[in-house]
């Protein structure tokens, strides 16, 4: 059986310097114009341990340093190379189109929450105006099931010039941090980070966390229809 990490364009064989899940060597399984990044595994269900999750990530990052990768969801296991070829061939056109969209681009994750150290006590919420951003975010958290347009506009104004695309994650619970993913061209990474720092500077009542660069997990179609 093979564990699959991602899909790349078919190219001259190159090896990943990173070991795969369970310590086995990473191999490329070619099909049509594509190759799956894979490593042999003994079991069908790969446990989502912290080590395995990071291993999946590190393999993709190693490939990402060389070429564009479509990251697969964690836990994809195929019976053999033939099964892998079948999977790739049935979605080849859509996979190739996605690869073209993601060329030279990476993902950054942003989390926004009220600055904990400056949160007013619960009883002050009705009258305090010292922390408008905090109150604003709190009221958003209580009121909205999704992101309101005004916050969308603020994020857009601050970061749109440095990102190719962005998406807002659905709110899981009213108390969830607000999350967004940005697709950034590699040459714009520094400028994007500086823009995030400026946004943090202009909104000190927000706590902004920025992670990345990630493989563009949030900017791939998760499911493909079979091509007829």
């Amino acid at each position, binding site marked *: 059986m093979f564990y699959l990490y991602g899909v790349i364009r078919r190219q001259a064989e190159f090896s990943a310097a990173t070991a795969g899940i369970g310590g086995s060597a990473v191999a490329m399984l070619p099909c049509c114009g594509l190759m799956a990044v894979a490593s042999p595994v003994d079991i069908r269900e790969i446990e989502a341990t912290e080590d395995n999750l990071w291993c999946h990530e590190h393999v993709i990052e190693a490939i990402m340093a060389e070429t564009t990768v479509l990251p697969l969801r964690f836990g994809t296991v195929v019976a053999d190379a033939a099964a892998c070829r079948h*999977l790739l061939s049935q979605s080849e056109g859509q996979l190739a189109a996605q690869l073209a969209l993601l060329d030279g681009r990476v993902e950054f994750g942003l989390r926004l929450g009220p600055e904990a150290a400056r949160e007013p006590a619960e009883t002050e919420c009705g009258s305090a105006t010292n922390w408008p951003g905090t109150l604003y975010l709190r009221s958003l958290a209580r009121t909205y099931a999704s992101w309101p347009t005004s916050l969308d506009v603020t994020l857009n104004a601050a970061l749109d010039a440095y990102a190719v695309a962005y998406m807002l994650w659905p709110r*899981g619970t009213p108390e969830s941090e607000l999350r967004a993913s940005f697709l950034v061209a590699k040459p714009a990474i520094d400028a994007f980070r500086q823009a995030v720092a400026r946004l943090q500077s202009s909104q000190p009542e927000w706590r902004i966390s920025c*992670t990345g660069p*990630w493989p563009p997990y949030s900017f791939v179609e998760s499911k493909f229809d079979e091509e007829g």
Partner: protein
Amino acid sequence: MEKLPKPTPPQRGGEIELADLVDRLLGKGVVLWGEATISVAGVDLVYLGLKVLLASTDTADRMRNAASNHTES
């Protein structure tokens, strides 16, 4: 010149990085159907061994809130 406050620096292996990793690997990425097995699709709570609880961030938020409500009452 005023120094810009930095956003929380992304620490590899830190709590936020791990939460973002879990969100992406278990909730995003291409799903290849057919002969592939997605062993954890749709699962937002995964037990690691006996001691470590790895939760998606929303689940973690719910648990934190439940814990803090419990403490306050």
